[in-house]
């Protein structure tokens, strides 16, 4: 039984935490929050690239560090903890992983080294309006060379160099890689609940693109990409949830009411204990996801779904009760609680809402029972 990260992996996490606690304080996060012109934190992004994190799970032959998915999970937790305002997930969990899973040799050679070097920023463009995108009935189309349609919202869509776009083709779905620096691409920034991570609407008019995977048959590839991303985002959520409970706990120890720290009242004690329990449930499910991810186990679909649902629930609870524990102070702009509340919502819908993942979970369990 070895259901934990290794000493090396933990060391990597400690180093990352140390780095981010210096370079990605909430004061730095707020720079992106408060400045509409700032779509991400560029110097932090450059720093992260220099540390080699972007290439963590990219093989050495493509310019990466050649470490594994467990190492990436460890970093994801720290990114989430720090609320890092950088396009890490779009670039690493989406673009790099899609290339690794389904890219041609030429595509990998062209882009993976650039990703590892921090020169390429990815975006995953699937949503076309309210509700989960129905991959069998997308309005965006691809005809083998040209892409047409509108995607909204696209996380990091305003700063990405390349997008992965889901599109209808031959009555099925294709995953299309698009260089965003070309005519026919129109980007419009979109205002969201979490301004520390930018979103855009992307309109494509006869834009050149190339497929990752087969024409009209990218469904399984996309499912796998989503499962893998779900695990990594669950680590971001777990990191954020842990920190929100820590923040609330620290505040509850120092804030006095009626002559005692508010953390001495059971209403607050038990609320925080509940948060801690939810975070443990999330963490344990995330670890199982990490195991499935790193071993490419057949259990990945249910492990990923469980990790995502548990982590979404934990971060939601932790972030809203962190505000509540802070009382009036927690509802001010200056106190950091709302940063977590905003990010929790982003991460809960980023690759599909928990409701959709509950359904994926039960489908996976049914498939397993039927097998």
């Amino acid at each position, binding site marked *: 039984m070895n259901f934990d990260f290794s000493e090396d992996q933990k060391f990597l996490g400690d180093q990352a935490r140390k780095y981010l606690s210096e370079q990605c304080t909430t004061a730095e996060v707020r720079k992106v929050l408060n400045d509409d012109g700032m779509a991400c934190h560029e110097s932090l992004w450059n720093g992260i690239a220099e540390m080699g994190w972007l290439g963590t799970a990219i093989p050495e032959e493509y310019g990466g560090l050649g470490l594994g998915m467990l190492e990436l999970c460890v970093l994801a937790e720290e990114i989430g903890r720090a609320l890092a305002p950088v396009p890490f997930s779009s670039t690493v969990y989406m673009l790099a992983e899609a290339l690794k899973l389904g890219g041609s040799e030429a595509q990998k050679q062209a882009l993976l080294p650039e990703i590892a070097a921090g020169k390429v920023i990815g975006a995953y463009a*699937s*949503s076309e*309006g*309210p*509700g*989960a*995108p129905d991959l069998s009935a997308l309005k965006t189309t691809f005809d083998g060379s040209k892409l047409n349609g509108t995607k*909204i*919202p696209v*996380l990091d869509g305003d700063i990405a160099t390349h997008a992965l776009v889901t599109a209808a083709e031959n009555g099925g779905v294709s995953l299309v890689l698009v260089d965003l620096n070309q005519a026919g691409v129109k980007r419009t920034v*979109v*205002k*969201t*609940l*979490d301004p520390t991570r930018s*979103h855009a609407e992307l309109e494509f008019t006869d834009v050149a693109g190339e497929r990752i995977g087969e024409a009209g048959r990218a469904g399984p590839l996309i499912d796998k990409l989503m499962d893998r991303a779900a695990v990594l985002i669950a680590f971001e959520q777990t990191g954020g949830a842990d920190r929100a409970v820590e923040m609330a706990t620290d505040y509850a120890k*120092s*804030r*006095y*009411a*009626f*002559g*005692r*720290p*508010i953390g001495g*009242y059971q*209403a*607050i004690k038990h609320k925080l204990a509940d948060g801690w329990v939810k975070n443990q449930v999330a963490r344990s499910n995330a670890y199982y996801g990490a195991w499935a991810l790193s071993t490419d186990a057949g259990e990945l679909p249910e492990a990923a779904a469980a990790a995502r649902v548990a982590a979404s629930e934990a971060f*939601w609870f932790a972030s*809203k009760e962190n*505000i*509540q524990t802070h*009382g*009036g*102070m*927690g*509802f*001010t*702009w*200056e*106190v950091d*609680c*709302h940063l977590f*509340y905003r990010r929790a*919502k*982003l991460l*809960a*819908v*980023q*690759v*599909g*809402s*928990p*409701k*959709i993942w509950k359904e994926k979970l039960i489908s996976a369990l049914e498939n397993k029972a039927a097998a």
Partner: protein
Amino acid sequence: MDFNDTPEEAAFRAEARAFLKANLPEKKQAGGRERGEEFLKRAKAWQKTKAQGGFAQITWPKAVGGRGGTPMQQVIWNQEESSFAAPTGPFQIGLGMCIPTVIAFGSDEHKKRYVPKALIGEEIWCQLFSEPAAGSDVAGLKTRAVRDGDDWVINGQKVWTTGAQFSDYGILLTRTDPSVPKHKGLTMFIVNMKDPGVEVRPIHQASGGREFNEVYFTDVRIPDSDRLGEVGAGWKVALVTLMNERLAVGGSPGPDYDEIMKFGTEMGLMSDQAFREKLADWYIQAQGYKLTKFRTQTALSRGDTPGPENSIGKILTANQLQDICNSGIELQDHYGLINDEELAPMKAIFQSSFMWAPGLRIAGGTDEILKNIIAERVLGLPQDVRVDKDIAFDQMKSG
């Protein structure tokens, strides 16, 4: 059991409606929160009209400018007024909480000077109790009032003050004696908000808005004649104000089960059993809140006084609002993150209320304080242990 007015109530309702119709435009739709100079002018004008018509404070005795009416008449008036575009906001705190305190504890001169002008809308009042380090524990406040001749000199900071930016006067709770236990060293004053030592700064809220204020007091001088109640009896005075607060707390602003049912229908979700069952839960809570108010109104109409059980309302509605908004957003999936009235379904009500809801769970008593109130005052359970009970304020730990 019926939902009809008694003949007397029906007569009053007709009178009220006629007055409103004659004096106000009908409401077109639930608009956002209006603000600004223009709005304030309209609000003052409407308050004057109302007062002249005898509808300003229906339950107040005629001697102080009220109608001498019943609480039920006030409820009926509120119901009728709410279906017109009545600009009432700026006066709720003053007439609901501050002026009743002035009436209860002020001198005859205070009453003559302040009540009529408040009633006809010439002067607006605010309530200055909460402080950064004194929220749920209001009596832990630190703003000092030090006696100097015939005056008191005030220094300190208040927070979450509604309407401070346009108020003329405020009732101000201060600490006059830090050497006695906290409840015993407080004194209440009337303060002129236009005094140069009073500085009002808007609070930037987590939701992004700036509806509330901080108020800083620097060497503000208040004559002893503007004291309300005895020196050291400020807590007794404040309790009267706070008791009136409970009656003044309004409904829930934001989407409820009907909005999310409408939205779910649009989104084709009505075939989803999980959504249907959640909808049922929300409906029952919403009805529970609405119908409990009907029970309270019935008690009012029978001459009873509503008690602390009113705390139920905010616990139910604030948490439900947060839950509904969260669901409304998640049902939109990634698109739900978009917080732009032009783009998001239903003018982004789910998103904007999502950011408001956490504040609603705190303002006017946190969930935790309200549950304590129900447990202690309705169920008669023991109070929390008060370690600060007999300790001098300046000897007390405060973190």
